[in-house]
C-alpha cells in the first residue's frame, strides 16, 4: 500500500524543532512502534547504511533509554540516550536526550504526542534545545523564520520548467 503522508518539519519559538507526520494505523500500534525495542530497531535507523544494534528502553518515569547506531561500512558508532520524565500510555512521552558525542551544547528535551482520528494517528515530535544556538546549530540556522519553507517553495519553482508561477509569487511587495 502506498503511503503518501508527508513529514512536516518546522520551528517553534527560538529553541524548538517540531516534526509532524500522519500514520495509517491506530495509536496503540504507533505507541508500540515507538516504545518496544524489537519494533524500534526495525525503523529508527537513520541514513541508509546504518543499523541499530542497541535499543534499550525502560519505559517508566525516571527510567532510561539508550540507542546506538552503527554504520555498517566502517563500523563507526553513534550513541544517544536519556531519561523519561513523563509517560502517558499511547498518548505522550517526554524524555531528555543527549548524544555521546554532542554536536550541540546541553541536553535537549523531546516530547512525543500521539493523536488518533478515524484509525489514523498524527505523531508530533518536538525537540526543545537548551539555547537558540543549539537549535540553529542542528539546522545550520536554516529553519528559522520559515526560511526552510521558503526554500521548499523555491526548490519547487526552480524545478518546474518555465517557472510559470513566478510573477504570481512576486506580487507588489
Amino acid at each position, binding site marked *: *500500500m502506498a*503511503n503518501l*503522508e508527508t*513529514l512536516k*518539519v518546522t520551528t517553534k519559538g527560538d529553541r524548538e*524543532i517540531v*516534526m509532524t*507526520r500522519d*500514520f*495509517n*494505523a491506530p495509536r496503540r*500500534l*504507533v505507541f*508500540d*512502534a515507538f516504545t518496544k525495542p524489537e*519494533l524500534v530497531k*526495525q*525503523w*529508527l*535507523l*537513520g*541514513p*541508509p547504511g546504518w543499523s541499530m544494534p542497541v535499543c534499550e528502553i525502560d519505559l517508566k518515569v525516571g527510567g532510561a533509554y539508550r540507542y546506538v547506531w552503527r554504520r555498517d561500512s566502517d563500523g563507526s558508532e553513534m550513541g544517544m540516550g536519556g531519561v523519561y520524565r513523563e509517560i502517558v500510555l499511547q498518548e505522550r512521552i517526554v524524555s531528555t536526550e543527549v548524544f555521546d558525542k554532542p554536536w550541540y551544547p546541553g541536553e535537549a528535551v523531546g516530547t512525543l504526542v500521539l493523536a488518533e482520528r478515524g484509525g489514523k494517528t498524527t505523531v508530533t515530535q518536538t525537540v526543545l534545545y537548551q539555547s537558540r544556538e543549539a537549535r540553529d546549530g*542542528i*539546522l*545550520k*540556522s*536554516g*529553519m528559522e*523564520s520559515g*526560511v*526552510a519553507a*521558503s*526554500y521548499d*517553495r*523555491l*526548490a519547487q*519553482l*526552480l524545478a518546474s520548467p*518555465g*517557472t510559470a508561477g*513566478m*510573477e504570481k*509569487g*512576486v*506580487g*507588489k*511587495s
Partner: protein
Amino acid sequence: MTSSDRLDATFHALADPTRRAILARLATGEASVMELAEPFAMTQPAISKHLKVLERAGLVSRGRDAQRRPRRLEAKPFSEASEWLEKYRRIWAGNFQRLDALLDQLKVNESKAKEKKRGPSKRYVKGDHRWRILKR
C-alpha cells in the same frame, strides 16, 4: 568564508520573496538587470540592491557580455544549503517510511490473530464459496 558563514548568507538571501523570484527567473536563463526589473514593478537600483545580496551569497554571478552584464544562477550554494536542510528531513522521512511498513505489518498480524480466534467461521465461508461455484 567558512561553510557556515556561506550558509548564513545563502539563507539570508533566500529569506526575501523578491530575491526568490529573481532566482526563479534566472533559473530559466540569464538576464540583464533591466530584464529582471521589468516584471517586478521596482526600480533598477532596487533590483540591483537585491542582486548584490544574491551575489554576495554566491547565488548569482555576472556573465561575460560587458554591455548587458547578464546575471546568472550559480547552483553550488543551493546544493550546500539544501544539503543541510534536507539531511535532517531526509533521515526522518526515511525512518518514517520504514515505520509505515512496520505499522502495516503490525495491522496484518493483528487481524490474523483475530481471524485465528474466529477460526471455524472462516472455514465455513470458504466451503460455502466453493459450494456455490460447483453449483453454477
